[in-house]
């Protein structure tokens, strides 16, 4: 009996060995497999606000303009035939009107030809779509001066809550007129057709507007009007727009179908498993080199690594912490040093919500806790700024693949500087001095005790907390900082409730312009800074808001640069946060992949690639 089994096993093994040998086909020259983590949330350009969706939409849809290669400020025409500028008169002197001549003979994947109506429809549909938690605020802000279309609706109807406008899903009669006005007086007027041109009328001068429109911003993708209506998207009418506003996920008609003008068309999207693209032969720039692009979503690093090693994947997302493992891999090319549009900071809110907040210990400066306004003392903030071993951290924890930022702005944006005076160095003595000054010396004498936070699963942020906690103890044994890792849900909740004393968090740019950073970290209404507590908000209104606004409206790059540098100086002098690091991207691919270029602005780069230019040898 057992001999039979062994024989069977042996035969099976041999057959398998042979079979696999036969299967190990040479890498297909027409196909690139990209193994990464986390699949797209949607394929609707106006819904998408995650990098994975952005990557796919980038390959399928085109925008009016694109960045020139790896540049972040030079644009090239895409579906527009000219890049507007003050010089060519396509941007008005006041910076309020942008004109784009539309390219002819561009075909959509379904064979339709691009018209100027398609462009108009794309932007208007985006504006009225404006889903909760979506990206459309980026266009609404410059074009209508609001964060959300609901804001205008509420203003015109005078209701408290947007939902009050409706009864059983229908607009109440008394608000109908006002609701139509939202479209006709605002949305409709913001984007206009002029012959073969499309004109944007801005509500305010907005220096990053071109960045918002450029390829890489899925929200500005151009979709096909007729086809979209066929799918069940907004029908283009003024008196129905609210029915197409902020739908539930499953009701979004463009959630899984695509029809762009890009170099690749969608073959099949299997959520969280794979996305398969195929070359679009009628692409206006000429067909791409590759016939097929396959995205595979594989969260397990070991698996991705093996796929790369075996050549089953051509391009692979490699966490920087595991970079060393692929460095000497045969047939694998690792390039590093790419700037990314993201950085990580540790925030220190000036006033915390003390109510039910266990993170503050006793809530008093008695050695058993901290007062809610602990970080409003600049010496405390400076003390901690000196207390972090920036260089050790970058060298050891992120394997050297990061640089420091002086303030909120990453390289190579305006505001970034290498001036050493703008950096705090790890210096326990200086930290001691600052802490001795803080709270009139009381802090030094009594000590402090509070929790510092990172979101669970993030080893790098955990290391930050560990280092802070460790060195705080070194500087004064009475300083007790307890590192606490919490789930993202709890992190988010405590952040929104202004309960986190010291927390580490990152920002990934929406578009590569300092304006995406300045309000976020410094403004009175910023994503992070708005939660620093009232003292900070008041202070920011005085000190940073005017500068941010001035830079936004400025049309002069030199002036902008100067303002953002000033903001950096303010951030540094006030020690508003611990500006920890800006990661330096790495790109890992098999060496037969050619044509990679890096652009810090395209989501997914540098890990992924602009597959239009990629070919295999």
């Amino acid at each position, binding site marked *: 009996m057992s001999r039979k089994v062994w024989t069977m096993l042996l035969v099976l093994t041999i057959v398998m060995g042979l079979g696999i040998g036969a299967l190990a086909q040479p890498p297909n020259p027409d196909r690139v497999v990209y193994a990464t983590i986390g699949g797209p949330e949607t394929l609707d350009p106006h819904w998408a606000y995650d990098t994975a969706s952005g990557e796919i939409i980038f390959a399928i849809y085109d925008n009016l303009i694109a960045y020139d290669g790896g540049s972040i400020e030079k644009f090239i025409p895409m579906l527009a035939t000219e890049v507007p500028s003050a010089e060519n008169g396509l941007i008005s002197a006041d910076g309020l009107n942008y004109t784009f001549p539309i390219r002819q003979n561009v075909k959509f994947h379904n064979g339709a030809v691009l018209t100027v109506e398609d462009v108009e429809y794309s932007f208007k549909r985006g504006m009225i779509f404006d889903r909760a938690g979506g990206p459309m605020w980026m266009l609404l802000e410059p074009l209508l001066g609001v964060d959300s279309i609901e804001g205008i609706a509420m203003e015109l109807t005078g209701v408290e809550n947007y939902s009050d406008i409706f009864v059983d899903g229908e607009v109440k009669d008394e608000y109908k007129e006002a609701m139509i006005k939202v479209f006709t007086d605002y949305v409709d007027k913001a984007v206009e057709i002029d012959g073969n041109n499309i004109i944007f009328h801005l509500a305010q001068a907005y220096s990053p507007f071109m960045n918002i429109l450029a390829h890489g911003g899925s929200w500005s993708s151009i979709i096909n009007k007729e086809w979209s209506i066929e799918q069940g998207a907004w029908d283009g009418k003024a008196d129905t727009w609210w029915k197409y506003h902020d739908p539930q996920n499953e009701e979004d008609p463009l959630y899984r179908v695509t029809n762009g003008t890009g170099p690749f068309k969608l073959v099949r999207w299997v959520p969280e498993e794979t996305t398969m693209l195929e070359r679009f032969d009628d692409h206006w720039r000429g067909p791409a080199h590759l016939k097929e692009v396959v995205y595979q979503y594989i969260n397990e690093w070991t698996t991705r690594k*093996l796929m790369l090693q075996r050549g089953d994947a051509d391009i692979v997302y490699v966490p920087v912490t595991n970079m060393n*493992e692929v460095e000497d891999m045969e047939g694998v090319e690792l390039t590093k040093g790419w700037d990314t549009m993201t950085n990580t900071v540790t925030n220190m809110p000036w006033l915390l919500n003390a109510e039910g907040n266990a993170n503050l210990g006793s809530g008093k400066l008695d050695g058993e806790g901290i007062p809610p306004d602990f970080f409003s003392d600049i010496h405390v903030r400076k003390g901690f700024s000196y207390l972090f*071993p920036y260089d050790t951290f970058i060298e*050891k924890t992120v394997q050297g693949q990061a640089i420091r930022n002086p303030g909120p702005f990453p390289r190579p944006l305006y505001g970034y500087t290498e001036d050493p005076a703008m950096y705090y160095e790890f210096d326990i003595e200086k930290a001691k001095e600052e802490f001795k000054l803080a709270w009139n010396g009381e802090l030094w004498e009594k000590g402090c005790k509070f929790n510092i936070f990172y979101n669970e*699963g993030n080893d790098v942020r955990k290391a930050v907390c560990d280092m802070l906690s*460790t060195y705080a*103890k*070194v500087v004064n044994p009475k300083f007790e900082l307890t*590192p606490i890792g919490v789930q993202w849900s709890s992190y988010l909740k405590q952040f929104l409730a202004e309960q986190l004393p010291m927390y580490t968090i990152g920002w990934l740019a929406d578009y590569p312009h300092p304006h995406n950073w300045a309000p976020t970290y410094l403004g009175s209404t910023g994503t992070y800074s708005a939660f620093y507590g009232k003292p900070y908000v008041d202070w920011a209104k005085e000190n940073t808001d005017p500068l941010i606004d001035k830079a936004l409206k400025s049309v002069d790059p030199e002036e902008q640069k100067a303002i953002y540098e000033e903001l950096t100086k303010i951030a540094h002098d006030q020690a508003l946060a611990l500006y920890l690091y800006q990661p330096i991207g790495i790109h890992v691919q098999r060496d037969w992949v050619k044509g990679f270029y890096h652009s810090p602005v395209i989501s997914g780069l540098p890990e992924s690639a602009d597959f239009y230019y990629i070919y295999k040898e």
Partner: protein
Amino acid sequence: MNRIIKKLLSNTTSLIGLLLLLFFVVIAIFAPYIAPPLFDDPYQIVRMTWDIEPRPPGFPMADEMRVVFESLGKQVDRDKALFGTAQGGYDIFYGLIWGTRTAFRVGIITVVFSMLIGVISGSIAAYFGGWIDELLMRITDIFLSIPFLVAAMVLTTILGRGLDKVMVALIAFGWMGYARVIRGSILSTKQEIYIMAARALGVKDFRIILLHLLPNTIFPVLVQASMNIGSMVVTAAALSFLGVGAPLGYADWGQMVSFARNWIIGSPGNAGKYWYAVFFPGIFIVLFVLSWNLVGDTLRDILDPRLRGEL
């Protein structure tokens, strides 16, 4: 009882199991001497370096860490990572030694409490019967209808990270087996003459359950419990592996394995480069579970009435 102990000692496999258990007990008891803690919280794994990449066995403590510990007034006696360091510079040896305590804690506490819940609900259901039985058994069914690991994951995620939360989750979804076993065994014992007699004499229900029924029905539950200690530790480790277990840096074997998760395969041509990162934690878990299973398996054989007198 003597017979059981004698059998356990005379059977080679269970003897190995017992010796292994003894080994772990010794480690747990003498942890402070084997691996003196350097942080105030001894369950905080000592970091030998800030390096993310694992370092091989014998790696000496990095200077920057030594400075830190010394300025904190700690005596650094053990300055080499005997088993290497895990991702993040955590000393594997330290984590494993103190993790032994964690393993015992998780295993024993979860098993004891889930057994308690199971025994209470199971015996109430079986003894009173009727709608109480129906209700309790349907509740058991409902709890059983959610896969254990998924249920535990959900609850741990909701409660937040931490060993205590893991234990709560394991108990909340781990009691049903005991309830069923004890119910079945009480149902058959309930009809025995001496129980009938006790009831006829008017002995209180509670007393009957406690003094008459349980002592006669508890054995299969105990066997199941002894075998479950190992599997509870594995489940807790699996939760850590999936990222919802003990807090980062806490001395817990599952966490040690999850540290190794990204370092299973070394660089090409040197596939086993980080062998120590998974080998040592893996071997600890396997041996620990093995020891319980060896003992439990023999125990079951001994107590299995069908196999009694054999072996």
